[in-house]
């Protein structure tokens, strides 16, 4: 028995690997477990090989495991493209359909156990039967997930397709379950301890969309790009139903400027994109800084540079998010550290952007954006858009007045007597263009000061555990770090995790406090050039020995790599 089980379902387009994966995850939720599913897809637009990578657990998780306990290939198709993403151990089990031929060397090389399961033949014996459902029945039985939960999910999902389809699928599940009785065993899930608790099944991209909605976003303009499109696809109908609007712009230059216009006109506004789109937006994000126009840009990072690897994850947009704007352009950068946190981080960013009248970039990534998680229903966090506005006809109203907080009341078109012209040219307090040194300095101080003086509370980082070793990390890599630290602790190695959520503005005093007593620092990130490590070096004092685990995508960083480093350091 283990607290979690990992299953990889693979196959060519049409084999139903993704469908089986989705149902497996839903069934786990139904049975009261937690879970996580990532997908790996080939470059084909439709069809093509796909892998559903599912981890089911009795505790909340935000990381893949080191290897898969069970691999079910519905066919061997182009498995070579995935094999590096399908690590198996000697105790793993491959359920191979003899009809599909021998186990290819790239998979056989892992040395896992192989058992024959005639998926196709079993499905063929059932009218309307499908091999993926037979496989699902076998998987559920092998890992100890009640078949009743799977049937409950299918009954809900296939309700519209009629009795016959449901009967065929159920028969397949049962055939798979029966066949599993004769198969070698794999580790089983614990009998589920969480009763009827309400679980949510949500992707990181959907969570980001929901965070935007909860935060008060009313206007979105955007241009489609992988892997950010799902944020927009989720938001379009959600906004429409709640009195907001989403427009598809002609490009990212338009989307960022439409968002500036929407925000200037008074609506909390947002756009979502990925690296190439963020590059196009940078000039205008600078305009939002200078004109103090609140807005949120979600960047779901993918492999770069250029078009890079659109469907796979990497943490390599940190530099452009932090340093990409020309001039001295202080702004907010927030990084969610799990699919679940995409909700909080986005909602918080809406709040920060509006409170501070600044652009906020949310640095999500493909790994969390496109993974689905089964979690407890997220609590309300109360962060909403609140913009400081002047009274109507405020005497001597000055849009960019110097104030103690650095935030000045922002008039909204429609407010009588407060009309002003927002400007990306340097300006005086009134907003009139000015190239005077004194105005430039005063406005630079104002724009930097308002971000610095703000109280970000405890949300600037997730800090867990204690010890003389600190692991500093960020974004989706936090999942494996958290898990590695947990495992190390069980072996008597104490380490503290500092997962930075607020990338900009930096919080040196808080970091110093968090690093008290720390003698060794391990930095973990997913970029080729150590962008995060260099960022930390530039802004924070790192004590004692510093080691870096940094490598590019698309392969995920796994807990064992980090655990090994920690153990070696003891």
């Amino acid at each position, binding site marked *: 028995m283990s607290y979690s089980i990992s299953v990889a379902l693979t196959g060519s387009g049409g084999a139903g690997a993704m469908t089986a994966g989705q149902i497996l995850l839903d069934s786990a*939720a*139904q049975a009261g477990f937690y879970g996580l599913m990532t997908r790996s897809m080939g470059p084909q637009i439709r069809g093509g090989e796909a892998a559903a990578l599912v981890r089911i657990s009795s505790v909340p998780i935000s990381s893949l495991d080191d290897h898969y306990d069970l691999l079910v290939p519905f066919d061997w198709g182009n498995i070579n493209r995935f094999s590096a993403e399908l690590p198996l151990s000697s105790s793993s089990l491959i359920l191979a359909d003899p009809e599909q031929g021998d186990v290819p060397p790239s998979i056989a090389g892992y040395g896992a156990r192989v058992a024959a399961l005639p998926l196709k033949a079993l499905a063929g014996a059932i009218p309307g039967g499908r091999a993926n459902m037979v496989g699902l029945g076998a998987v559920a039985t092998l890992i100890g997930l009640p078949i009743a939960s799977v049937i409950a999910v299918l009954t809900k999902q296939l309700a519209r397709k009629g009795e016959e389809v449901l009967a065929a699928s159920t028969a397949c599940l049962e055939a798979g379950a029966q066949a599993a009785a004769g198969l070698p065993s794999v580790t089983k899930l614990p009998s589920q301890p969480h009763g009827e608790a*309400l*679980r*949510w*099944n*949500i992707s990181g991209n*959907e969570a980001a969309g*929901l965070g935007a*909605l*909860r935060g008060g976003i*009313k*206007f979105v*303009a955007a241009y489609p790009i992988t892997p950010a499109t799902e944020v927009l696809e989720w938001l379009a109908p*959600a906004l429409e*139903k*709640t*009195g907001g*609007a*989403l*427009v598809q*712009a*002609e*490009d990212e*230059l*338009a*989307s*960022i*400027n*439409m*968002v*500036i*216009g*929407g*925000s*200037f*006109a*008074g*609506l909390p*506004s947002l756009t979502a994109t990925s690296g190439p789109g963020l590059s196009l937006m940078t*000039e*205008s994000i*600078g*305009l939002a800084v200078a*004109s103090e126009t609140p807005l949120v840009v979600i960047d779901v990072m993918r492999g770069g540079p250029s078009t890079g690897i659109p469907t796979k994850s990497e943490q390599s947009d940190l530099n452009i998010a932090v340093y990409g704007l020309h001039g001295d352009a202080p702004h907010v950068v927030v990084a969610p550290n799990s699919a679940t946190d995409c909700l909080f981080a986005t909602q918080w960013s809406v709040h920060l952007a509006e409170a501070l009248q600044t652009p906020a970039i949310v640095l999500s990534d493909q790994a969390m954006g496109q993974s689905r998680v*089964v979690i407890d*229903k997220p609590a309300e966090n109360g962060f909403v858009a609140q913009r400081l506005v002047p009274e109507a006809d405020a005497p001597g109203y000055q849009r960019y007045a110097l104030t103690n907080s650095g935030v000045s009341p922002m*008039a909204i*078109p*429609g407010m*009588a*007597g407060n*009309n*002003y*012209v*927002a*400007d*990306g040219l340097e300006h005086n307090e009134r907003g*009139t*263009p000015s190239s005077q040194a004194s105005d430039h300095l005063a406005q630079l101080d104002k724009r930097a000061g308002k971000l610095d003086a703000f109280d970000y509370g405890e949300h600037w980082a997730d800090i867990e555990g204690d010890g003389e070793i600190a692991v500093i990390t960020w974004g989706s890599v936090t999942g494996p770090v958290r898990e590695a630290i947990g495992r190390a602790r069980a072996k008597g190695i104490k380490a503290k995790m500092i997962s930075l959520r607020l990338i900009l503005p930096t919080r040196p005093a808080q970091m110093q406090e968090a690093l008290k007593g720390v003698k060794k620092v391990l930095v973990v990130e997913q970029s080729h050039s150590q962008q995060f490590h260099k960022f930390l070096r530039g802004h924070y004092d790192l004590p004692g020995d510093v080691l870096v685990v940094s490598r590019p995508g698309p392969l995920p960083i796994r807990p064992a790599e980090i655990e090994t480093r920690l153990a070696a350091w003891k």
Partner: protein
Amino acid sequence: MTIQSPLTVQDFKSDVKPIWCPGCGDHAVLLAVTKALVELNTPREQIAFISGIGCSSRIPAYTNVYGFHGVHGRALAIAAGVKLARPDLTVLVAGGDGDGLSIGGNHFMHACRRNVDMTYVIMDNEVYGMTKGQASPTTAPDWCNSKLTPHGTGVSPVEPVRLALAAGANFIARGFAGNPNDVARLIVEGVHHPGFSFIQVLSPCVTYRPEQREWKQSVHAGQDQPPQLVAEAMHRLASDDGFTTGVLFAGNRPAFMPERKVTASFADIEKKFAS
């Protein structure tokens, strides 16, 4: 009941002194805009005046309404955002031929076809004034007075009104800065016309294109009844010399505006995530 005295041209001018050269056509466009605002009789706070970068794009700061002086080429995108977010506002956009047709050319095409209800004035001087006299997309191919293109561009200029028609603008007009009353009337008509209204205003750059002072000899009024059919407008524009003023097309496509109706609560929307 309070009786508001009607606003005057002075009420729509700000106290910021224009940076424009004496004699620049843009002074007259500013006058025309303020006259149009008087005529429109819309409360000042209900007007949003958006621009990009260039000599001409400085215009919002010289008026006394809400405004946004953005970055080079993106005025139409900001304006679309303003109008889509706040359909109750009257949205004016202005800028140069470089701003709107070169760096912002893609937005121009899409603003025409998207047909959001707003009025866009290109102050066309066939040159980049702000950067001190380079060729723009409307400059003749043999104009050799720029150090960047000493032999001329050798490239055909675009004809803004034809481009607008082809891309689907719903109202197209041309004016001349030398006749500010006519320009004011075109702006008023453009604002009243639903959808995207485009007005090319020939606005001489006396510093880098002094020969444009002669434009006043070339402009001539077009026919009184503007065509309502694209085919007819195209036919007329095919033989246009670039100096015909007046309304050149008044179409009847409905303006684009997403509908807003609250039909669900957040709780309804979140239900989908519950397993």
